[in-house]
């Protein structure tokens, strides 16, 4: 069975020949693997770079889908400043801390009113060059692999990234006008991008906004329902309007138990990443409760066994997750986040090997 069919059958709640896989890598892990495999490991220049980079390595390992997403406009590539920091087209400035590049300047950090917000211009979502890479990837992989269009910072996350998380959360709770306006503009920006990704041939659009923490929701379910749910509903409706066949995946780290019904109601069809150590995020329970309506993508623990376990422990983790969610299809195995630099190559191979061993249908678990 071709990888694409395997992936699509699974997310359509049917049994494929085996459980499909979709993992992503941090740059350090990609470099290690790329050198070993003799494959390119450079990251692409994009806001969500790790989701659309390292494709050849990932397919060689055994991924069944290819991630595509918006790149930078030709006119506004990310530039290196004299002090070594990186500045992107949003006006975000990033600095390297240990393994990671993280924002140190946010363009809306001082904004308090809609008038001030008006001084700021989001990039042009359809600027020339934005989709060059996506087009190339689609023409190379379409048909053979499922194409996943990545839009994981759909409304909340891109908005707070421009403002800063604490200020954003406080202004949101105080009902500041500019927040409503910013959320609308960001939703429109990402809608335009998602529509283009669908036109290019994405089988799945992977939306997301992290509303979970280890212990529970970051904001109240009520606030989610009032502010974010209507916006997300519109975004999803726009995508379904362009192509009713496109499947909607949704990413949120952490524990989001109270809003899963809401997500299903607004059209989410694949829940990701079901972070296993976050409170209540139990794949087996979810399969029982929601498995006739949605598929799951994720489940493999990146806070414990994947970085810290032995290859044998990784294999039994994979077996456990497949046993919990694999029956009847509806499950794509994936780590709960991009694979971190503390994870050994052996454990990564062990994960892919174990899917082949335990994930073949009919399951014998």
């Amino acid at each position, binding site marked *: 069975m071709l990888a694409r069919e395997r992936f699509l059958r699974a997310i359509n709640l049917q049994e494929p020949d085996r459980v499909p896989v979709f993992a992503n890598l941090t740059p350090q892990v990609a470099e290690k693997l790329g050198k070993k495999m003799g494959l390119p490991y450079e990251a692409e220049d994009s806001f969500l770079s790790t989701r659309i980079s390292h494709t050849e390595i990932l397919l060689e390992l055994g991924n069944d889908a290819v991630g595509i997403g918006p790149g930078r406009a030709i006119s506004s590539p990310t530039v290196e400043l004299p002090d070594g920091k990186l500045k992107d087209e949003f006006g975000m400035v990033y600095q390297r801390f*240990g393994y*990671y590049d993280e924002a140190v300047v946010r363009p809306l950090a001082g904004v308090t009113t809609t008038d001030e917000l008006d001084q700021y211009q989001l990039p042009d979502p359809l600027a020339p060059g934005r989709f060059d890479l996506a087009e190339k990837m689609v023409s190379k992989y379409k048909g053979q692999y499922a194409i996943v269009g990545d839009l994981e910072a759909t409304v909340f996350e891109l908005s707070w990234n421009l403002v800063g998380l604490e200020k954003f959360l406080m202004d949101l*709770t105080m009902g500041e006008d500019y927040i409503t306006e910013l959320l609308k503009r960001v939703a429109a920006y990402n809608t335009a991008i998602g529509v283009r990704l669908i036109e290019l041939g994405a089988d799945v659009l992977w939306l997301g906004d992290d509303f979970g*923490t280890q212990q529970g929701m*970051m904001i109240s379910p009520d606030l989610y329902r009032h502010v974010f749910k209507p916006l997300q509903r519109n975004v999803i409706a726009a995508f379904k309007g362009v192509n009713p066949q496109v499947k909607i995946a949704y990413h949120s780290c952490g524990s989001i138990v109270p809003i899963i019904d809401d997500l299903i109601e607004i059209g989410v069809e694949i829940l990701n990443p079901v972070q296993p150590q976050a409170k209540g995020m139990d794949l087996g329970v979810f399969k029982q409760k929601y498995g006739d309506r949605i598929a799951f993508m994720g489940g493999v623990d990146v806070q414990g066994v994947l970085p810290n376990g032995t290859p044998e422990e990784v294999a039994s983790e994979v077996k456990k997750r497949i046993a919990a969610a694999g029956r009847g299809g509806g499950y794509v195995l994936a780590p709960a986040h991009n694979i*971190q630099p503390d994870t050994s190559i052996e454990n990564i191979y062990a994960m892919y090997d174990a899917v082949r061993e335990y994930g073949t249908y009919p399951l014998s678990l």
Partner: protein
Amino acid sequence: MSLLEEMSEWVISGNANKVKALVEQALAEGVAPASIVNEGLIPGMTVIGAKFKVNEVYVPEVLIAARAMHAGMAVVKPLLSVSDTKEKGIAVIGTVKGDLHDIGKNLVGMMLEGAGYTVIDIGIDVPPEKFLQAVQEHKPQIVGLSALLTTTMTNMKATIELLKPYRDQVKIMIGGAPITPKFADEIGADGYAADAASAVDCANNLLAS
């Protein structure tokens, strides 16, 4: 409702302007600065912490409550006598090297402050040497380390090792998403807490022991 009770309520609902106005009113009416802190501002934060722990309120509500408390504190703090402020103890907190997640650490700081501790927040991406410096400089009773990543948890161990010569003077507590009580034991921390309200209990217990 008494003035101080009302002040607590406005802390709980996060109204900084009201809290500031009530603190000024209380001072004008001759209420002792220490009472304003201990019976007005602190009880508000205690309630918020307890509600946060059971998911009755969430991160934003804690942030605005802390902002309201600060607005009141800024008015009374200069008026507190030395004996008023020395009560609870000093806590140095920071997120360990390589790690930029700061919301959890900030909430812990706010709750400690809301419980009467003097909090010295030394920020994010803090190398072990900087924790050592802060201990030498501020002579805290409590050091709190935060880490949200498996790739940075190891820097907690390195920090604890560097603080070895001071272990009879400071208690070290740790927390963050991937941290477990077992890990805290393994690296020789004195305490662990899963959330910001429990972090206050943890600090109180460590000081009592």
